[in-house]
């Protein structure tokens, strides 16, 4: 736990509402993805509310062995799992094999027939100079299946370790690899389409 994080948390313990609001807003998006992927969108906000209650009660005992971010994500995941059982909601992890087998970019021998084009831009910043593409990627990411979205956000946008994500989302390492690959590949295709056509 970093010094600045310690400082924030000690202010949280003494009841600093500004710090609370700041953390709540900062982590909302990621917490929402985790809650949604485990318990479904309909009750995600309730799960988040419960998670903050549990977290704030447990905060004085938080020892800082992990970062606050991964601690709070574990709490929201646990809350979501409890709620999922309570509401006996069956979450269908969409079948991993869905239409992956018939990807039109590959031929029957699984070699390229429709490869991606050469891109203009060698860095993410160069690629994202067009605001339109940024919006387009964000929009398409929102449409990904919940578990892919949660995995991508945790891994690529927030730097969680593979082990942490497996624990939080209750997926095996090999399933996580598939989720990440699918999500990234989808983003790659969005960028490629934009490079080819200039359109989202």
């Amino acid at each position: 736990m970093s010094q600045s994080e310690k400082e924030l948390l000690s202010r949280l313990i003494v009841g600093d509402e500004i710090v609370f609001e700041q953390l709540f807003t900062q982590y909302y998006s990621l917490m929402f993805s985790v809650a949604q992927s485990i318990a479904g969108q309909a009750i995600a906000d309730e799960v988040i509310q419960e998670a903050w209650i549990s977290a704030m009660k447990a905060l004085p005992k938080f020892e800082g062995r992990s970062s606050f971010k991964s601690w709070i994500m574990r709490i929201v995941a646990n809350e979501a799992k409890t709620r999922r059982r309570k509401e006996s909601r069956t979450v269908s992890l969409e079948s991993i094999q869905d239409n992956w087998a018939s990807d039109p970019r590959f031929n029957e021998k699984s070699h390229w027939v429709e490869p991606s084009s050469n891109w203009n831009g060698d860095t993410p910043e160069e690629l994202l100079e067009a605001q339109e593409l940024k919006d387009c990627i964000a929009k398409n990411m929102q449409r990904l299946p919940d578990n892919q979205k949660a995995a991508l956000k945790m891994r690529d946008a927030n730097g969680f370790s593979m082990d942490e994500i497996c624990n939080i989302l209750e997926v095996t390492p090999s399933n996580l690899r598939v989720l990440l690959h699918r999500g990234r590949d989808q983003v790659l295709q969005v960028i490629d389409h934009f490079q080819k056509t200039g359109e989202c």
Partner: protein
Amino acid sequence: MLPTCKQATEQLSENIDHNIRGFKLFKLKLHLMMCRLCRRYDKQINLSAQTINLVEPSIKPSDSLKAKVLHDYRGIHQDSQNKHK
């Protein structure tokens, strides 16, 4: 047997998260040497992953949820203060 292009794309993504080693890496490298399309894919999947970091769509909490959790937080803080008294 060398990986197919499709298998290579999966392994290239895997390689972002932990380095592929040994014979599997050897076969992947060999495929990449021979296949410019997969070399391109390698570069692009890495770029895509980095891009996600920059565009992560961030959704905002509703005002009513914000008010509810703030209310909870206040209550918990007051409870713990009362205990200390």
